[in-house]
């Protein structure tokens, strides 16, 4: 059965970013499933009043705010919940006060919606901690998917230089400083030269080489992934300030070329990276030596790790899976 579906999003082209990419992939998946889809790109809250919701059978909200503040029937809503948007904390005082006052109403909104799709169990549990009651039919955990059509297995051996990339915004919870420290320790432990490519210019190291790539274009970002041996994402859980890593999209972006990831144990990252399969989870409680020993084993079987990473990313995180899910939930 096919009917009209509206996708509401606060982020869309020409602006780039995780939500824009997700929206594009979701819309493509809907079109592949033969749904008649419109996109409503809202920039301010008042835009939501202009939505002609009567035309649509279902409304998929890339950010729940549209469904919460929109004046249509709650049961039309399918909400995609990525991460920190469901926290009731924020550095912005007004936003924080608003969320605190309307916490129960926001939670009720999710409970009245037709479906809630959480990109990680960690994200769902954040909402549960706030008082949300799970319905295991309505509330689905579905890990991120990406367009893997341009993915390609790249067999890139490690010679005498370990190339690592870290493609993130330079914000405190992304913990670039922590990534540099860990790679410095790794370089000394394995007696191996390490080069870290960053898209930020303010970091330096006397132990590893920092390659700065300011304002990466789409093409150069893909090239950076292809030539890297590891992707690193050591994000911290800054939930109390309103930030954590919902899933870690860059691990999939790197994975579609077979590049394994090094991640922290926080947020949705351990649900994304599986020790020994598509990378390694750094557990700070176990210490750096434990990490170095484990990554040594991974490097010892590097070409298999790349193969496993590629296959896992393509098979389990390709957009075709999102299409299958949408067919079920719609």
């Amino acid at each position, binding site marked *: 059965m096919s009917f009209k579906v509206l996708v509401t999003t606060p982020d869309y082209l020409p602006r780039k970013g995780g939500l824009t990419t997700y929206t594009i992939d979701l819309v493509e998946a809907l079109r592949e499933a033969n749904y008649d889809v419109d996109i409503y790109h809202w920039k301010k809250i008042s835009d939501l009043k202009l939505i002609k919701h009567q035309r649509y059978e279902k409304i998929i909200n890339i950010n729940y705010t549209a469904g919460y503040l929109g004046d249509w029937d709650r049961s039309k809503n399918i909400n995609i919940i990525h991460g920190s948007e469901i926290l009731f904390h924020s550095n912005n005082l007004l936003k924080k006060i608003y969320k605190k006052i309307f916490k129960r109403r926001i939670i009720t909104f999710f409970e009245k919606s037709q479906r809630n799709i959480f990109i990680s169990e960690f994200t769902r549990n954040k909402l549960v901690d706030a008082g949300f009651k*799970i319905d*295991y*039919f309505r509330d689905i955990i579905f890990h991120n998917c990406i367009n893997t059509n341009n993915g390609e297995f790249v067999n890139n051996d490690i010679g005498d230089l370990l190339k690592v990339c870290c493609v993130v915004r330079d914000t405190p919870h992304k913990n670039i400083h922590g990534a540099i420290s860990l790679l410095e320790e790794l370089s000394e432990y394995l007696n191996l030269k390490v080069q870290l490519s960053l898209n930020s210019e303010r970091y330096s190291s006397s132990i590893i080489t920092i390659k700065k790539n300011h304002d990466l274009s789409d093409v150069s970002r893909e090239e950076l992934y292809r030539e890297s041996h590891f992707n690193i994402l050591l994000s911290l859980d800054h939930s109390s300030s309103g930030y954590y890593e919902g899933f870690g999209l860059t691990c999939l972006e790197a994975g579609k070329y077979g590049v394994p990831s090094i991640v922290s144990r926080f947020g949705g990252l351990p*649900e994304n990276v599986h020790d020994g*399969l598509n990378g390694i989870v750094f557990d700070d409680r176990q210490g750096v030596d434990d990490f170095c020993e484990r990554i040594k084993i991974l490097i010892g079987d590097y070409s298999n790790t790349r193969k496993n990473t590629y296959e896992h990313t393509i098979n389990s995180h390709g957009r075709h899976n999102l299409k*299958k899910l949408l*067919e*079920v939930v719609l």
Partner: protein
Amino acid sequence: MKGLGVFINSPYLGGAERSIISQLKEIQGYKLSFYIPFLLEESEASELISHIKSHHANGDINLIKFPSSLYKISRSQTKKIPFILLSLILFVFHLRENIRKHDVIWVNGNKIGLPILLNLILGFKGKMVYHLRDYPSKDSLFKYIWRLFRYIKAEEVLVLANSYDVQKKAESMILRSNVVFDTCYNPIDAMTAKNGKQEDGIVIGIASMLAPWKGIHSVLLCEAMYRFELVAAGIRAINIYGDDIYATEGENKNYKKDILKFVDQDSLINFKGRVAPQKIFSDIDVLVHPSLKPEPFGRVVAEAYESQTALITTGLGGSGELILDDCAIRIIPYDYSGLKDALIRCCDESFRKELVQSGNKMSQNIKEQQRDFWKRLERFIA
């Protein structure tokens, strides 16, 4: 003859109860007395009592009324702490005489463990085996249990885990110098292998109580997403064996009702309710063990090996100790596509046979581990 008091954790015949009843057959020269808690009516324990009688004809069976508020805190949080404390104190004194009768007491779980440990603080000169059937919990009142070990007056204490993963966790939480830690894998009843090839398609089974952490909903969503591919590969049915057996609150509540909504008229899913393990494994070709949280042991994993059934598992926690690369397919929680691929792979009969052969070897390893433990236990209780 010396007396061994066995304090069972629940009136229902679950995995932990089956295990202890079977394991105690290894102990010779002791008069066994079983203590079974019940919540409202003694009839709750009827299935368990029959099972004990069929295995230990000479054992005494005693039923004890267990405060229901105390029972419910194992899997859910509660705000009625003062009321629970009062029930606990009364229950501690109620148990007192029953404990003192024995030379050795065997505690088969944490719900019954808390009042017994409190009793042991008041004085008990025998030996105690504290059998952990789950990871030592840090939730609710249970976080205090592990501290109680410092104050108990038992002569010797053995904390027995059902996997090395559980033992490791227990060692980090129970800090008392003269406690001995050990592990004995749960016993598995002998099972006959399924004979012959299915002519009309492959039957997949999940054998588990209906609880969210068992991950049944993730299999249901996988089936809804990939039904066409699964049918095309030759899968005829996905049977779910089990029920909501715990009278606990919290995330368990409504789970069964929620997941039944996944099933429509074209679904491959069949909810079969509670069925004996031998019957389950004679009906299925492949067992899926989709737990989303670390399992202390993973009884069905060992049962799959014993019954020569191909296995797909998340292998989290202690259950991972039972899995080598070639005796099961490992899947990742919430990886619906990965589960679908594993199910389709298992439709190949020769591949299933390879898994079963490796599973047989692992089954022997499990039995050897158990034999070694019972030799050590004889020295402990002597």
